[in-house]
């Protein structure tokens, strides 16, 4: 396998780009694997990688019904941050951010993690105090977090709408400097390539159509490419979790599927150097600029349950209003594309990485719309769970039974209404 480096780029340039290897193999599925991961999205790929790397597993397959990274891996707005403050989330997302910081070198694939700062705008003293609790908690955990006043913010992000006559004047910002953006597709490909190099079979165009359960264990999955046995099986199929779960005869889940739109503008010369988040007056909006120059942004869910990867106009309009209100120079900038992805929205906005009613089946689901930044840790903890058959202490409450216990991890305090979590 070629190790990627400036040298390999140079050498292949001289030799006509003919000597590159496949980024990952295209193997035929074997009859049986030690671990089968259903779902070749970021979480599935990361899980397989860490199973192989951290836990020495040799015989792993990822089954992907389409092409890897084809779900939310390639549909998100690429934001990476760890500004969570609830127990469980705090440790989890910080671990994720640390993994992100070393990810390009770890995978030998440039995932372009740009720690360009994540800036949440503040509009009232009350909001500042609320943010302070969150960012103080981060600081006391050794993470980074700052509260900026207006002068500092103006200097760092000059083109925002600072008019005192705007509907919600800005008074400052809560900032995580280590947060930023990454190149979403590259993360999927990087994990796939690295997992493949550790022997993981990545099997695309392999849709799970059924499961076979015996004596409280899932013995195999039926696919369009034949039956594949697995000693351990993990589900990581965001957006379709309920369907796979029901296929396995496991009933209901504390999950609803909703769709979230995302937007990109035509490419522009550098205009915005950070991730900016705007949330006031019922609005929710986030924006950054990709390295290619497109303004990448998004807002709220479409507000009704849906499995369709198609959005509707009210949110398009709402998101545009946010964009131009906060960055008034964007009025003349043109939207190039908008699309949507389907999200597992959980009942408290927090995911599940847990054991299931079946002994050898493990679940990774319910990422709401925060799954991208979570991918490294999601894979790391899920691999740890599968390998050791017990949850790491940081994800002790990321199980399906937490609602019975009354242990909600509700960062927004929105209660059991999935569409209100983000």
């Amino acid at each position, binding site marked *: 396998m070629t190790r*990627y*480096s*400036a*040298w390999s*780029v*140079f050498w292949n*340039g001289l030799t006509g*780009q003919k000597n*590159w290897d*496949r980024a*990952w193999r295209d193997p035929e599925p074997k009859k049986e694997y030690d671990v089968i991961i259903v779902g070749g999205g970021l979480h599935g790929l990361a899980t397989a990688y860490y199973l192989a790397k951290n836990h020495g597993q040799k015989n792993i397959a990822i089954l992907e019904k389409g092409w890897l990274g*084809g779900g939310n891996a390639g549909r998100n707005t690429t934001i990476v941050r760890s500004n969570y403050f609830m127990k469980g989330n705090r440790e989890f997302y910080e671990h994720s951010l640390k993994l992100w910081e070393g990810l*390009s*070198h770890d995978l*030998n694939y*440039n995932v372009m993690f*740009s720690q*360009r700062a994540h800036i949440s705008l503040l509009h009232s003293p009350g909001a500042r105090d*609320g*943010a*302070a*609790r969150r960012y*103080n*908690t981060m*600081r*006391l955990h050794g993470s980074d977090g700052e509260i900026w006043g207006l002068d500092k913010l103006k200097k760092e992000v000059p*083109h925002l*709408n600072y008019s005192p*006559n*705007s*509907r919600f004047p800005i008074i400052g910002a809560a900032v995580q400097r280590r947060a930023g953006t990454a190149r979403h597709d*590259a993360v999927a*490909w990087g994990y796939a390539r690295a997992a493949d190099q550790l022997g993981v079979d990545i099997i695309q165009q392999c849709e799970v159509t059924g499961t076979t359960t015996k004596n409280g264990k899932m013995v195999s999955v039926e696919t369009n490419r034949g039956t594949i046995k697995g000693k351990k099986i993990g589900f990581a199929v965001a957006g379709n979790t309920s369907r796979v779960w029901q296929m396995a005869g496991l009933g209901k889940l504390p999950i609803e599927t909703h769709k979230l739109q995302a937007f990109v503008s*035509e*490419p522009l*010369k*550098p205009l915005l150097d950070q991730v900016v988040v705007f949330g006031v*007056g019922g*609005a929710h909006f986030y924006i950054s600029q990709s*390295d290619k*120059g497109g303004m990448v942004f998004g807002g709220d869910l479409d507000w009704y349950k849906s499995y369709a990867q198609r959005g*509707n*106009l009210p949110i398009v*309009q709402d998101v*545009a*209003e946010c964009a*131009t*209100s906060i960055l*008034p*120079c*964007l*009025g*003349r900038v*043109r939207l*190039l*594309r908008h699309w949507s992805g389907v999200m597992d929205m959980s009942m408290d906005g927090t995911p599940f990485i847990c054991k299931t009613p079946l002994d050898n089946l493990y679940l990774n689901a319910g990422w709401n719309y925060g799954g991208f930044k979570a991918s490294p840790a999601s894979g790391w903890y899920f691999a740890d769970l599968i390998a050791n058959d017990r949850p790491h202490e940081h994800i002790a409450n990321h199980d399906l039974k937490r609602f019975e*216990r*009354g242990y909600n991890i509700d960062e927004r305090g929105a*209660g*059991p209404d999935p569409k209100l979590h983000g």
Partner: protein
Amino acid sequence: MTAKRLSSGGRIDRSQSLSFKWDGNIYNGYAGDTLASALMANGENVLGRSFKYHRPRGIMSAGVEESGAIVTIGEGAKKDPNVKATTQELYDGLMASGQNAFPSVRFDFGGVNNLFNKFFAAGFYYKTFMGLPPFEWGSKGTWLWMQYEKVIRNAAGMGRASREFDPDTYEHGHDFCDVMVVGSGPAGLTAALEASDAGLDVLLVEQDFMLGGDDLNRAGDLDLIAAVEASNIRVMTRTTAFGLYDYGVAGLLERVTDHMAEAPDYMPRQRFWTVRAKYTIVASGSLERHVAFGHNDRPGIMTANAGAAYLNRHGVLAGENIVISTNNDSAYSVAADLAGAGASVSMLDARETIAGATAEMASGAGIDITFNAAPMRAHGPKGIKKLEYASNSDHGWHHAGTVSCDLALISCGWSPVVNLLSHRGVKPVWNHENACFMPVESNEPLAVAGSATGHWNREDCIASGRAAATQAMNALGVSKTQVSAPANAGWENPIEPLYEVRVDSHKLKSFIDPQHDVTSDDVRLAHLEGFVSVEHLKRYTTLGMATDQGKMGNIIGIALMAEALGKDIPEVGTTTFRPPYTPISLGALTGRGVYDHFRPLRRTPMNAWNLEKGAVMMEAGLWHRPWYFPEKGEGISEAYIRETEITRNKVGLCDVTSLGKIAVQGPDATTFLNRIYTNAFAKLAIGKARYGIMLRDDGMVMDDGTTWRLSEDEYFMTTTTAHAAKVMVWLEELLQTRWQDLKVHVTSVSEQWAGIAIAGPESRNVLSKIASNAAEVTNDELPFMGVTQTTLKGGIPVRIARISFSGEMAYEAYVPSDYSRDLMDMLWEETTKVGGCLYGTEALGAMRVEKGHVTGTELDGRVTIEDAGLGGMASKKKDYIGNVLRKRPEMAKEGRPQLVGIFPVDRSKKFNAGAILCEKGKVSGFGVGWTTGVTHSPSFGHWLGVGFLEGGYKAWEGKTLIASDPTRAGDVEVEIVSPHMYDPKGERMHG
């Protein structure tokens, strides 16, 4: 390219000369020109630079698929980058400039990138820029990447957007119609006419500034347009149907003034229309394809139909010595037209031979055709000089000759515009005979007509437009006719599919996506590395992600991947087109909902009165509420401390109108309230108020407020400002979906009643002065928690309850909103007499913190009733919403964070809300609690606060902790006290 304007012909108005600027040079064009046609007529042929290699680019098309002539229009605050010159209507004074180039598109230092293009293959950036070259040495973090990133970001991007506020205005429009027809070529015009003749309300939408579609590119009369103009059809030109959404809803962008030199102030720049059509006919046409060959991106190479468009529409002969390369019949009429206009035209046809009318047309025009020939390599970096061509044999393509030329026109097939159907989730299917993706039937009320469904001649397009209209008429019940569209008859001479001319032994740089510099080698590299699905191909190479959204190159890319895989095109599939069809401004999507109109502003009926009294306003949700009322020279701190002191010692008035108010009426109102509140409401007497807590289903606190019993079956409920709407929806949901047997009606009366809090020892005195009958507000008649409905002086109806948030003797009085000014004038007169004041939310907050009352800051959706220190309000004798789930083990367990009061140990010290409470020596992690509300207390003379602490006051009584606030103030030592800091026995409010 030696283009010239012809003295006659075309659809421009030579009597209207327009002056415009290109990169500082002043040129002239005519009404009816696009910027592209005008620049071409003025001899400009390098108009852009490509994204990655900064290669010079000229005009490549005559429409929305343009990938070369991407320019910036305007300057200053009205600068528009990334405009396709081929779609920009010319106007007098238009100012355009090249972009993505320094110093200019004619000579660009960035062109040096092209020298290194062999290293800049698809995805090369994923393989390096991680550390120091050559082996990615150095630190393992992201620092080095971020240094590279700065350079990459500056090199990337296309145009530069203005940094100024967009000065233009935009509007939203809403419309309905029976039939919306998208596209005004022969098919669309026919469909619109047919449907309109049947009495249907037809909206015809055309992105161009002229109707006619491809008819505009041919010489001849525009008879259909005359008919449309005489009909009832509602025509929208300069309007793009950019997306089709659910239920026949289309998003339209109307460019209202983008073609005007100076627009009147009252006109918006653009309008975003939401159109709800009962039936949609998509007659969006088709786009001509290029072919991949060496240096096929050179200025002077464009689609064949563009040559016809510039000639027949704009009166510009794009070249004198033209070579046309084709694989289908459509280019022959172009050849004949150009030859007729005086150009020397020769043709390369990839096919072995042609016959029939097409052949006759060519021989009639005296055009020399070389068969079995296709372009191989172009020469002339800033304008084509000659074209090498190749012939095909069993061993593939080989070099066959060279022709000199100043313009090369390419026609390698046509792709129906299926974008709008793709928005609806309809996947097009590959049609081998026509070598293109065709739309398939949709089960929505939608039909496709014209070349968008693979009809290549005008007669068939007209017939298919008629068939689509009949389909619409049948669907809408105005006709029951069986009309079938003509079959896709293909071409007279079959098309010879051709996507790339690759000649062994020649290294050719062949572009597929010219804007993003994606080459055919990039596709093969993607294949080599396993990025073989179309979505991987697109993402790895960035094919189709430029501003033309793949209109120019997608099919070629897919075809080359199919070839590399040894598969058929349909097995490889196509990507899903996403809206918008062409890029649309965010300003238009925003409309008027921007700046101070971003969200509605809710003002209380006392707003003007408050402002007259000097109120500084504060955002509270969508409301503006008085924050404080500064007297001369006061800042917020001085003001709220004064307001608090005066209220505590005399009397203060506070506008509380923003609280939610709900009328709960009906025989079962009592039962209803008893179910939604945790505490007992069954025995609340008429004329009494009660503070209540309501929980969510999951047992967490939802909201709190007082509810007043006005009569046997009528209550007046107040909610918090923040949750007013939510509570109303919740009550309606319960009554309409869960408890349908309850006879209760709830009505939001938040707008109907203006509310004022009158608080302080003098409050009764003040109230009695304005009441019609002072005896009604005595301590006996209106004791603590008493309610009265009466009148004020002047006969103003009023509801008064003696309730207190401040902890003082206090009243809340509500009058119909229209009386609020009278109320305030009367109250203020009496209040000033006793030395009282107005107070805002800051003083309100200070007093509630002193009292240890909770607000939304504490009740944040994660707090149980016990956490809030209100466990006593949870009835054990009845069932209510949330009473089951609140008993879940984790919610009922000991040691949860509970409300406490907090004093600084050093009373001169300040601390903040949002600080983390930690034990000394353990200032890290989650600590043991946090602060939620902090104020300077005039009553105590120092800072104090409330917050949550594990185990509550019980566990920490008298102990000291650290309030840690690393993001702001640092650490302050605090001691824990009861949350009821001020007047803990409540003597003052009962007084």
